[in-house]
């Protein structure tokens, strides 16, 4: 069985710049792993996640998903399997339910079962969103609520890999704790594979993460309880 994700000799520089952000970066991710990538702001942590789901294109190297080069996978297919959740949650100007069902309006997810309203309500509870109604506008939610909703929406299309870009950086302490708790539960209970980038000092309580540091344009295994 090939690893879930394998990054080989990845090189990247921003358009119009010759300075490399990544230089022959390597990473292997096995199914079920909980990976934390740490490093100061501006080292390219978010860019790394964006490269994995092809929102940016690398200058060199390759990224394999389940053994296949990601450039050989239809982009929409890749992104339904490898779901990226941005730092600032984005909602369409519609209800909570319409936002949650948005992935099902896309051709690639046409064959997947849409969750019913009751199912969505039950899920909202699990995401600490019991107090919001599926029919209310998503635009009026707080940023912490939007972040949890964005996580829930990404999960509804059942991706194999979740890429979380600084999921708590815009949140207060309480909201951040909720998001961390959700992330850990997704790994322990639903066996989801997660790659989270963060610049804050977060130590998971219930999972054993693989912690990488992004320094000198490449990743270094920093800490592992495995």
């Amino acid at each position, binding site marked *: 069985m090939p690893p879930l994700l394998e990054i080989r000799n990845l090189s990247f520089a921003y358009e119009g710049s010759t300075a490399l952000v990544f230089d022959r970066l390597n990473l292997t991710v096995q199914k079920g792993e909980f990976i934390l990538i740490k490093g100061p702001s501006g080292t390219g942590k978010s860019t790394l996640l964006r490269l994995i*789901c*092809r*929102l*940016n*294109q690398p200058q060199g190297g390759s990224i394999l998903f389940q053994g296949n080069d990601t*450039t050989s996978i239809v*982009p*929409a*297919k890749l*992104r*339904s399997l490898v*779901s*990226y*959740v*941005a730092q*600032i949650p*984005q909602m*369409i100007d519609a209800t909570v339910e319409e936002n949650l069902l*948005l*992935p099902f*309006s*896309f*051709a*690639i*997810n046409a064959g997947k079962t849409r969750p019913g309203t009751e199912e969505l309500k039950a899920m909202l509870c699990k995401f600490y969103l019991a107090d919001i109604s599926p029919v209310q506008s998503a635009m009026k939610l707080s940023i912490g609520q939007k972040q949890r909703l*964005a996580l829930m*929406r*990404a999960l509804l*299309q059942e991706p194999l890999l979740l890429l979380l870009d600084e999921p708590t950086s815009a949140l207060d302490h309480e909201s951040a704790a909720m998001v961390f708790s959700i992330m850990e539960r997704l790994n322990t209970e639903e066996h989801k594979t997660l790659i989270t980038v963060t610049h804050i000092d977060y130590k998971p309580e219930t999972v054993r993460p693989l912690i990488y540091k992004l320094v000198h344009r490449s990743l270094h295994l920093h800490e592992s309880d495995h």
Partner: protein
Amino acid sequence: MNQIINISTGQLLLALVFILIAQATSFIYHLGLNRDITIGTLRTFSQLFLMGYVLTYILKTSNPFLVVSVFMVMVVSAMFIIKGRVREKQIPYIIPTFFTMFVSYLATALFVSGLIIGITPWWEPRYFIPAGGMVIGNSMSALAISLERMFRDMRQQKELVEMQLSLGANYREASLNIFRNAVSAGMIPSINAMMGVGLVFIPGMMSGQILAGTDPLIAIRYQIVVMLMLVGSTALSSIIVMLIVRRRCFGSGEEVLLSPH
């Protein structure tokens, strides 16, 4: 009654009074438009005189290559005007826009002069060049509006587009609203023109025909054809250009290439 009164050079210069009014307004209220008004006036005189001489020559020689060449020059000029208005450097849109304009306007002008008006030969310059000119002039504005709007929205809503891409949308699904809004923004002026025509304004071509002594009932038939032609050619060229240019806003991995300013 059908005697056309010529405008003498002196009378033509007298019309500059209108420009003086505009210049005075800009000067008094510091609108900063004096230079543009001067350049615009000079260009109106020189370009129209040039066009007058070219048309006189073309009408005399009746050469289809010459007629199509004039048409080509008009499309190239329109392209430069669009380029000046859109000012987009990241996405290459000029070449597809040019070819679409040339082909779709040629098709529209041919349809109108050849089939609806039924002129032989189809390139009869007296009909073909004014028809082509009106199509180019109107659709050019529509294209400039649509392109400018799409590039602007794609930049401003980049994160929203990327959110949809991240949820499995293909580039067409992720940019559907931006695309629709941009195309309709370009088409609205020509649709609105159909609403107001004959009530609020008398279009230039019809006015010209009436001034030149044509029966108003014939002039309106021409004008109806022109109005419909403008809506159709705008829709056709906008859709083709926007479909091609929208694809160019995304890279090989269907990632958004435009970045916010």
